[in-house]
């Protein structure tokens, strides 16, 4: 018994050594602008790590948009690279420059890499992560992506750590599998806030997101936040009156329409068990 305890401590120490915690944590994180979230994450998301963003194929606009906005926050003024496959650019539409500019993201900084298949995409991703001049990398994977196993994500995480490039792994319609990602999020669109000049609330407002922190290395998970993007400030903001763990606080429209919608939806069985696993 004592023997095994001894072995366990040795192993733990070994793992801690392998993990190589960075000495200074301050400048290697970027703040999202949402105060409560940044506080929980000790100052924001870590740079030079892999962050996984999950979204159903219906939430693809919100999920990929959120990934782009995070990439912008992570990269300051350095170029961004978005890697995707031919199939993805056929299914998901092309990034649109005027829209990017309207969100406060300079389209000239964005490079779009279109690869033939997932194998090539993952190889290119590791290669891109070795290039320290890159600001951030968005890797778009659709569906189950069986090629993305623990080894593949570990390889990416090591490359990202060495170069300091933040990798955002965009998983559209995918299920969480074990991975070496630093954090794992579920992203959904949230009803936007009414604009100040439009009290009736008929007009869609600034982009809002509902986030669930599914997993975080060495930290609490299972937390939920609502964020709204402020293109003027170039950061996220809290939705006024939002409270953690409370998702139906905003507007009757969302609450009222939810049941009707779930009935009309084509059911997506793989989605729900997945959410259950993750929680």
């Amino acid at each position, binding site marked *: 018994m004592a023997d095994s305890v001894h072995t366990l401590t040795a192993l733990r120490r070994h793992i801690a050594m392998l993990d190589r915690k960075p000495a200074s944590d301050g400048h290697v994180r970027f703040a999202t602008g949402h105060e409560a979230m940044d506080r929980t994450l000790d100052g924001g998301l870590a740079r030079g790590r892999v962050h996984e963003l999950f979204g159903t194929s219906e939430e693809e606009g919100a999920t990929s948009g959120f990934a782009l906005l995070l990439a912008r926050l992570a990269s300051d003024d350095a170029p961004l690279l978005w890697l995707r496959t031919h199939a993805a650019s056929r299914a998901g539409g092309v990034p649109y420059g005027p829209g990017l500019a309207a969100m406060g993201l300079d389209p000239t900084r964005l490079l779009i890499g279109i690869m033939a298949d997932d194998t090539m995409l993952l190889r290119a991703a590791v290669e891109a992560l070795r290039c320290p001049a890159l600001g951030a990398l968005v890797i778009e994977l659709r569906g189950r992506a069986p090629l993305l196993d623990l080894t593949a994500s570990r390889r990416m995480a090591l490359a990202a750590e060495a170069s300091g490039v933040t990798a955002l792994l965009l998983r559209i319609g995918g299920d969480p599998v074990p991975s070496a990602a630093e954090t794992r999020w579920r992203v959904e669109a949230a009803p936007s806030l009414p604009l100040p000049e439009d009290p009736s609330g008929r007009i869609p407002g600034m982009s809002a997101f509902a986030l669930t922190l599914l997993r975080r290395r060495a930290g609490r998970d299972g937390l939920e936040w609502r964020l709204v993007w402020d293109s003027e400030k170039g950061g996220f903001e809290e939705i006024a009156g939002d409270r953690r763990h409370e998702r139906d606080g905003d507007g009757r429209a*969302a609450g009222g329409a939810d049941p009707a919608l779930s009935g009309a939806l084509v059911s997506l069985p793989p989605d729900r068990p997945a959410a259950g696993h993750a929680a």
Partner: protein
Amino acid sequence: MRLATLDAAALAIGLTPGMTLADARAREPGLAVFEADPHADQDWLERLCDGCARYSPGVAIDPPHGLMLDISGCGHLWGGDEALAVAAVDRLERHGMRVRHAIAGTPEAAHALARFPSGPAPDEDAAVRRLPVEALRLEPESAQALRRAGLRTLGDLAARPASALAARFGEEAVDALHALLGLGHRPLSPRRPRPAIRVERRFAEPMGSTAHALKILEEMAAQAGERLAERAQGGRRFEALFFRSDGLAFPLRVETSLPVRDAPAIMRLFREKIDGLSDPLDPGFGFDMMRLTVAAADPLVPTQLALEGGEARKQESVAALVDRLSIRAGRAGVQRLVPRDSHIPEQAQLALPAIESRAPAIWTSRSEPGNPPLRPLHLFDPPQPIEVVALAPDGPPHRFRWRRTLHEVSRYEGPERIAPEWWLAKGGEIAGDSVGRTRDYYRVEDARGRRYWIFRHGIQGMEAAHPGWYMHGLFA
């Protein structure tokens, strides 16, 4: 200040080159004067010279303001030598030049005949013999001395013994005379573009190992790099050819977005290319020759290493990444968005290969900061048809079905009407399908907060009886 050169009108009123500007102004107060710029003249002459390569490969500059074309064997392409000359003169005159020309058997004779007009002569030899002694291009004093001696034309000179002429006026005078009369020959040194850099290696024994061949390719790349450095250039396109002893040749081509001449960088690209080959590079019975060509090169000034990884280095390394990915995924594999001046949404941007577009474009945002964006982050091209229920035929959407899912519209903004490019319509028809139909765009948010950009294609009752609806983009 003196007059360097004059146009025909100025010569006609008696002004001469070398006259002081003050004198010339006194005689003709309305004189238009421009400062002489010999360098610009030379540049212009070089441009004209390069343009004349269409008539003959042997084109040379005949300083200070002549062009010499070696048209041997080229005339038949233009229907005769005279027709070629007329075409060339016409072309130069279109550039605003005043051109005099002559065709002769030797460059010197042509030079002289073009500059010293003479009456019609039975043949070239007779025409040359009629030329004044100034055509010899001797010192002005020598020409004057010849005239004083009563020798006015080249024919007079040619009748004298050459030794007497050489004793009095020097060997050059005889040489010049012989060249003009077609007795001696001085070759033309044509102006040619610099040839592409090409490095070749031949092997006494065929080489059976690809790894060894790549090692040699690296040496060749280093050699090509040195020659590029001499020209202050960097290669944009490299081509390696592996010749196999059984006659097969493997071409490998790589392209870079920034000029390079660094052998390891070039080799990284070639290795990338070899990794991506569907057929591996098979030496078979061995390679017996290799050739590396720099197919395109751009100026690259010698670089100084940045002290602490400055901006230039950063950019270079992203460019290197773009090169590697472009080789693996094809030229259009890595793209950059470039704005285009069109109000049709899908035509407002172009995705160009990042390897070729260099100058950063300026994007202007139509949305004011602090307001929700008016354009989506993702655009579907072509737009995807959707089923829409609207409360009125020309009203806003109420609910819609996209990808087999029903979406309840909870908020909307619109319509934003985008008219087709009617000015492109054929035959002036206004409402036709030749240029497309008017689109009414709505920004909608469904009950769950997803934001979409949808449009009605055509105006109800005017352009279409039942206008269809399309999904065109996704907002974040």
